[in-house]
């Protein structure tokens, strides 16, 4: 199927909105993505015509709602090529999915004398939960360093992994855009006897995902970055690991029996899904998966590759030595998330001037403070592109940036 960005744009009602009389230039999709009519309509339809509890009541409406809710799980499983549908667990978001791994698998497997490995480019969601557990359990966290062009420095990886029980890493940096060699990193973890955990929050929305080809053990991501609703995330895990893990949250739905003396857990996936689930959001996520699948993730990646090349070239051509773009200059090694510094104008001030032109970027530390310290800065401007962005968005970014430069050098 051929990819037509104008057709894609027509699917996203917010992109046709005028704010203060000017069009929206949305370059903050690494933060959260906009929503297509397909998702909006699916959720609205479900609320209007099909809403009911899932997996507990016997009447027809509830049975149909359960079918839709579980059908969305099957769609997600197919989207990431999960071997078994019940290995796909609904969570609140990717952060909760990572916390689930840490609290459940980590608590059962990591204690004093143990080690696990993270990288220097992780989001706080893949740092802080491990630090919290390490403070309780006394295990060690080791860090994979970066090269000067923002890639993982793998020269000492086998030493870092030696004796480690887990290697948890981002598939794609939310600051640098770096796409990590996921399959190679999973293989290195397994060779050392560690499990491989992939924070795929920035990758799943932007490129084909195949958890079996990666040979990962756990993969986490969120719905809201992949044109789906907020309020729902996914944890995929190997059945054998999930079966062996203690439950995370306790409550209704996750038990098979409760007596005064104790409880027994339900089978997967219910074991890890305590309480009423994000039912409407699951329907929305299913619609998002259908939407992206129809476009084709290869097409999404190809479009974003083109946008990355154009954005990198345009920014460098227009601003030369006034701009410092962090991360790799090779679009093949990165996604369309571009962090930069512009002269000595503070990112927060740049984003303010950009906002006057409805150019939406993120300014700040992007929930990756250890990485920011490595870059020697406490904030960057981050422009992130998605399937609905066009070359004119790149022009709008450059024009607004130029205006910011003029304003602050008066």
């Amino acid at each position, binding site marked *: 199927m051929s990819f037509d960005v104008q057709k894609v744009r027509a699917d996203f009602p917010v992109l046709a909105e005028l704010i*203060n009389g000017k069009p929206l230039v949305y370059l903050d999709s690494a933060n959260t993505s906009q929503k297509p009519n397909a998702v909006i309509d699916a959720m609205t339809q479900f609320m209007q015509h099909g809403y009911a509890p899932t997996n507990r009541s016997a009447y027809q409406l509830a049975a149909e709602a359960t079918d839709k809710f579980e059908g969305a799980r099957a769609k997600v499983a197919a989207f990431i090529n999960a071997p078994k549908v019940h290995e796909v667990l609904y969570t609140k978001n990717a952060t909760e999915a990572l916390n689930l791994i840490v609290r459940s698998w980590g608590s059962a497997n990591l204690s004093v004398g143990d080690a696990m490995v993270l990288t220097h480019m992780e989001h706080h969601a893949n740092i802080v939960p491990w630090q919290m557990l390490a403070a309780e359990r006394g295990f060690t966290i080791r860090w994979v360093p970066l090269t000067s062009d923002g890639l993982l420095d793998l020269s000492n990886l086998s030493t870092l992994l030696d004796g480690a029980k887990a290697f948890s890493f981002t598939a794609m940096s939310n600051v640098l855009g770096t796409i990590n060699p996921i399959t190679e990193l999973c293989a290195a973890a397994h060779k050392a006897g560690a499990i491989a955990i992939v924070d795929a929050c920035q990758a799943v929305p932007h490129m084909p995902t195949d958890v079996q080809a990666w040979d990962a053990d756990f993969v986490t991501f969120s719905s809201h970055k992949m044109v789906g609703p907020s309020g729902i995330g996914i944890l995929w895990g190997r059945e054998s690991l999930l079966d062996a893990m203690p439950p995370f949250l306790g409550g209704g739905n996750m038990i098979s029996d409760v007596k005064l003396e104790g409880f027994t857990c339900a089978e997967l996936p219910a074991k890890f899904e305590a309480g009423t689930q994000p039912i409407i959001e699951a329907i929305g996520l299913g619609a998002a998966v259908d939407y992206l699948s129809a476009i084709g993730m290869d097409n999404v990646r190809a479009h974003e590759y083109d946008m990355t090349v154009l954005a990198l070239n345009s920014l460098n051509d227009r601003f030369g030595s006034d701009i410092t773009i962090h991360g790799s200059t090779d679009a093949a090694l990165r996604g369309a998330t571009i962090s930069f510094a512009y002269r000595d104008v*503070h*990112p*927060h*001030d740049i984003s*303010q*001037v950009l906002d*006057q032109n409805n150019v939406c970027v993120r*300014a*700040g*530390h992007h929930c990756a*403070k250890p990485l*920011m310290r490595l870059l020697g800065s*406490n*904030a960057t401007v981050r422009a992130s592109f998605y399937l609905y962005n066009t070359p004119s968005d790149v022009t709008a970014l450059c024009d607004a940036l130029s205006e910011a430069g003029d*304003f*602050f050098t*008066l």
Partner: protein
Amino acid sequence: MPGLEDLYREIILDHYKSPRNRGSLEPPAVRSEGHNPLCGDEIEVFLVVKDGIVDDIKIGGQGCSISQSSASMMSAAVKGKPVEQARALIHRFKHMMSIDEGGEEPDTSAPLGDLEALQGVVKFPVRIKCAVLSWNTLAEALDIAAE
């Protein structure tokens, strides 16, 4: 929609480019530190209180033009002033930023001087935290100095 000139008044950019009382002080000066987790702004306040007077103040840290100019103006406004007057100014400034901490309405009879220029920040709610960061950090430093 408010324009950039409502936010970035000339005097603000002047304080940003030529910050007053920039630097650090050695103990026995007290030190406090403030962070804006939203955007990564950092402010350090070094403070010497002698006989109930803000005898010396220095500002460190890094951040956007609003946070840094607010800190610069603040340092100029409180240096040499009685502690009680500095605290009253903190209350008044936060009130101007529409932050209601309870207590009495601040006395607004005295001229605000350069600080008046920050009034436009209120029209940009996201930036209020930037403007107030140094004032919260000063309040903390005054508390430490009073211990």
